[in-house]
């Protein structure tokens, strides 16, 4: 067996096609929450850290796929810096208007960049795993699995840990438990940069029953390029805000949430969406702006505790 190429991803890129091209995907954001780096030139630490690590070859990958349309402009610029440092880089664009034919053309370009689809059965296998992922997500909302354990699996659906067998084992290691559901909370925006956020929230009696972006990672699938394009074109982060908000309203209602935490990064364009989210989502809302990775800071814990008290009052 030839050595698989390791392909970095900056956000959601259909891992179905990367596995189908006999490559191993690696979500470059995986290394951020545990990182102790202070990037030199940063707006958002999520993109600045992977940019610096890739440019300095502290993170070794064969190539990088940058989600340019459908992610932030920080990623677009930092991706170009990585390309200028000599890492083969491909820029992947989602359509703002959901045009699946456009997305299909983008997927063909992606396959050209990766090589050929030598394992066309892989998308089908991943689809099955994503069905399991949806059941796990449902069990968490029913209080049968811990919020943190499920988050760690859900967030890994972006690259399926680079190996479907390893990922299957991680899923099967999940242990059911009875979680007391005091306050059912949805976490929208980008995932927190703090590695213990879900566990901290749970210790403060806030149970996260919806993770917006990780849910997108497992929500889309397809068995061939045609189907994948038709499903992934509804990736909410790439679409207009009203599309995303309609989707959120439905999901939050379904999960009977009591409150919403809107997490964004310092200097993140998602912060501009905060007032819209507050006006359109009819729930008590806590906004948190993170900056550098690490443990959840005490000031953020204060906000979480105060939010819990606010929910207790409703």
């Amino acid at each position, binding site marked *: 067996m030839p050595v698989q190429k390791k392909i970095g991803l900056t956000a959601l890129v259909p891992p179905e096609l990367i596995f189908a091209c006999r490559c191993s995907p690696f979500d470059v954001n995986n290394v951020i929450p545990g990182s102790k780096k202070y990037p030199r030139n940063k707006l958002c630490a999520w993109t600045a850290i992977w940019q610096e690590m890739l440019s300095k070859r502290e993170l070794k990958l064969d190539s990088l796929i940058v989600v340019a349309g459908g992610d932030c402009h920080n990623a677009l610029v930092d991706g170009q810096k990585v390309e200028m440092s000599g890492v083969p880089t491909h820029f992947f664009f989602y359509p703002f208007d959901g045009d699946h034919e456009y997305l299909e053309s983008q997927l063909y370009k992606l396959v050209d960049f990766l090589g050929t689809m030598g394992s066309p059965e892989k998308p089908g296998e991943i689809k099955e795993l994503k069905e399991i992922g949806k059941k796990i997500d449902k069990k968490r909302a029913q209080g049968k699995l811990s919020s943190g354990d499920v988050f760690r699996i859900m967030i890994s659906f972006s690259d399926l840990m680079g190996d479907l067998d390893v990922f299957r084992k991680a899923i099967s290691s999940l242990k059911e438990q009875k979680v007391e559901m005091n306050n059912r909370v949805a976490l929208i925006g980008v995932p927190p940069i703090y590695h213990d956020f879900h566990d901290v929230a749970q210790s403060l009696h806030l149970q996260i029953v919806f993770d917006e972006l990780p849910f997108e990672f497992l929500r889309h699938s397809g068995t061939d390029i045609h189907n994948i394009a038709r499903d992934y074109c509804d990736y909410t982060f790439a679409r207009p805000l009203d599309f995303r908000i309609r989707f959120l309203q439905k999901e939050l209602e379904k999960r009977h949430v009591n409150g919403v935490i809107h997490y964004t990064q310092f200097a993140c364009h998602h912060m501009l969406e905060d007032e819209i989210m507050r006006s359109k989502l009819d729930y008590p809302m806590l906004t948190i702006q993170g900056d550098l990775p690490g443990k959840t800071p005490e000031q953020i814990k204060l906000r979480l505790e105060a939010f819990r008290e606010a929910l207790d009052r*409703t």
Partner: protein
Amino acid sequence: MIGLDVGSTAAKKVSIEDGEIKYQITGTHNWKDLITGIEGNDIISTGYFRNSAPHRASVTEITAAIYGVRHYFPDADVIVDIGGQDTKVIDVKRNNFIINDKCSAGTGAFLEFVANYFKIELKELGSFHSRAKRLPAINNTCAVFALSEMISQLVTGFTPEEVIAGMHYAFARRISFMIPDAQTLVLIGGTVKNKGMLSALEDILQTEILVPDEPQIVNALGALIYYR
């Protein structure tokens, strides 16, 4: 039973004796003096150091502010708590709050900065403001750069009184961005004792602002009422 608020710059103790509110205020570092002879079981704590102080129960400053303000103004729908290190805006009706602590431009520390520069007491800022005849525009949203802008205004001929008034407007403008529309807006926290800042904020928001008699003890009182 007492309410104890140990904040970032001051500590406050409140008790209610025969229906009358009694209080004491000291610097944060002396907070232990406030509870000499008082059992932890008789303390309801709040503030940054709420978990460091002995307590029967603790509550965050946000919840304490709501209970404390209701004692003075039962119809309050928005509370702005301007503390030494952060500013909290609590939308009581919508059960929401936002906190500014990424930047010192909207906190008490900013005005301390200004007072230190002019070598005057913090409490003198209000009377300086009242003597201003003109108002220089200070546009910087960063406390440090606002200070350099303040110096530039002094160089161009504005008096210290006028520059201080300009700084109050810069401060108030910064906070005004955080405040939603309100029927009854209440300000609390030590910084609110500064009449110059208060009038600047009233002018910018074009609304009446209510302030309790002793705005610095509201959270300690709120913690006590919350538990009762």
